[in-house]
Structures are given as structure tokens and as C-alpha cells.
């Protein structure tokens, strides 16, 4: 693993991202664009599951019909994130906030699995429910907490990685 990161760090592509005056901030800005565009959909999903929206959107709208665009946004964000990682693999892998962020992504996956049957595969049933069941509201609260933590961890990474000499 160590020799792999050393090899990666020495590739021309990695050196380009690290050394160019614009590559890093432009990729970072694109990473943030993905977060803004895709984060809004996650927020609306959670707000809908909490019952804090005007009611014009159904649970099926935000859970089922926004699934594909959310996945597309996530892939876009992850690709930009991967490029940032390639630019400075040794610093990122040693970065405590980077590690916390990876753990948080594992928790996001577990969250999706845990609420899959009760919430995310039951959108049609939730549409007709008189009020949101507790499990749906719990899923939404945890999702908000996890994604906000991921954004904070991401912000933390930059405080350590991008220290100009």
C-alpha cells in the first residue's frame, strides 16, 4: 500500500494536480458544485421524510424518482474527490479528517441498508401514510447528521492537506 501511494504520488498526473496553480482549486470547486447540486436533493428527501415540506412532493418523488440523479451527483462528487486524492495521496491517507470521512461513508452505506426495507423501498406505502412513521423520521435525521458530518470532515481535510509552503 505504501509503495503504491509512493508510486502514485510520483506519477506525472499526480504531480500535475499537486503542482498546477489552478488544477487543485478548480477540481475542488467542481467537487463543491456536485455537493451543492446533489446535496439539495438529499436535503429535500430528508425534509420530505420529516414532513417539513409543503406536501407537493411525494415520498416516491424524492426517494424513487430522484434516486438516479442523486447517484449521478454522487459519482460526480466522488470522481472529483478521487482526483484530489490522486494529487496528494500520502497527505490524504495520513489525514485524520480523511479517515473520519471514509468511516462516515461506511456509516452512510450501513444507514442505507438498515432503512432499505422499512423506508427506502416503501415509498409508495409512505405516500399514503396519514403521518410519517417514526422510522422514516429517524432515517431522515440520521441522514442529515451523516451528510453534514461528511461536509464538515471534508472541510477539515483541507485545513491539513492544503498548506502552501
Amino acid at each position, binding site marked *: 500500500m505504501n509503495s503504491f501511494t509512493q508510486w502514485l504520488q510520483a506519477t506525472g498526473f499526480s504531480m500535475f494536480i499537486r503542482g498546477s496553480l489552478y488544477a*487543485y*482549486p*478548480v477540481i*475542488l*470547486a467542481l467537487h*463543491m*458544485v456536485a*455537493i*451543492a*447540486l*446533489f*446535496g*439539495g*436533493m438529499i*436535503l*429535500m428527501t430528508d*425534509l420530505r421524510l420529516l414532513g417539513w*415540506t*409543503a406536501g*407537493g*412532493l411525494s415520498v416516491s*418523488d424524492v426517494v424513487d*424518482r*430522484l434516486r438516479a*440523479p442523486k447517484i449521478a451527483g454522487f459519482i460526480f462528487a466522488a470522481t472529483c474527490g478521487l482526483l484530489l486524492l490522486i494529487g496528494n495521496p500520502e497527505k490524504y491517507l495520513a489525514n485524520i479528517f480523511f479517515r473520519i470521512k471514509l468511516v462516515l461513508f461506511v456509516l452512510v452505506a450501513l444507514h442505507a441498508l438498515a432503512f432499505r426495507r422499512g423506508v427506502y423501498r416503501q415509498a409508495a406505502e409512505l405516500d399514503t401514510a396519514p403521518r410519517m412513521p417514526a422510522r422514516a423520521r429517524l432515517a431522515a435525521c440520521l441522514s442529515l447528521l451523516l451528510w*453534514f458530518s461528511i*461536509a*464538515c470532515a471534508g*472541510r*477539515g481535510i483541507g*485545513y491539513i492537506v492544503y498548506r*502552501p509552503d
Partner: protein
Amino acid sequence: MPIDNPINAFELAFPIVQCIHVAGFALSAGTVAIVDFRLLGLILPQRTPAQLLRETALWTLSGVILMIVTGLLLFSSDPDMYLLNFSFDLKMILLALAIAFNYTIHRRAVQSSPSPVTGKFVACASLALWISVLFGGIFIGFSPQVLGFKA
């Protein structure tokens, strides 16, 4: 008697406020983007853009307020640096344009069931404005004065 600005008193205050600033941005630009993606025909064909605007408007406004309040706090940490920062000045102009556009042309176009071409044009302009605000924000931290280079 000078009063210490709390944002400079604790090392963690600035990054924490910045995280909330990002959340405010995701809430404002992210909810506008939902309407814009609908105008572009990319998502939720069974809802009209006007329906999505009604659904998101309050959250967009909350995000804008959160973003401006936290932005002012961040600005107060070092006003001179920000004012002299070209990216910051540009970002403020773009932000004013984005907000003005959102609450005039964008809103009116969405509510009047625009033709597909008009709708797509308005959506692209809106997305371009919000994305450029975000680029301006990122580049504040990468400008020569912040990095300590000799400009």
C-alpha cells in the same frame, strides 16, 4: 475599548462557521438546482417547475439567509483581506446577480409556465450564476494574498 471578535478567539470557530456556510449553500443553490434541472427536463417530469418552486422556495430562502449570516461572520474575521481579494469582490457581484436573478426573472419565468426554450435558457443562466458564486468562494482561499505569495 476593542472587543475581540469571537470568530478569531477560538481556532475552531472559523472552520465550524464555514461548515454551516457550506450547508447554507447546499440548501440554497441545491434547491434552486432542483427547479433548474426540472426546467431542463432532467428530473421529476410528473411535477411542474412551478410546483417544485413552491415546494423548495422556503428552503431556498432559509439557505440564502443562513449563507449570508455565516458569510458575514467569516467576513468579519479579516475584512481587509476579503475586500482586497479579487475573488471575493467578484463573488459578491455574482451573488448579488444570482439572488436578483432568482427572485425576478427566474421566479417569474417558472411561475408563468415558460416555453421549453425559455425555460432551458433561464435554467442554464441560473445554474451558471450559482456555480460561478461557488467558484468565487473557493478561489478566495487560493488567491495570492491568502497563500502568502508575493503578488
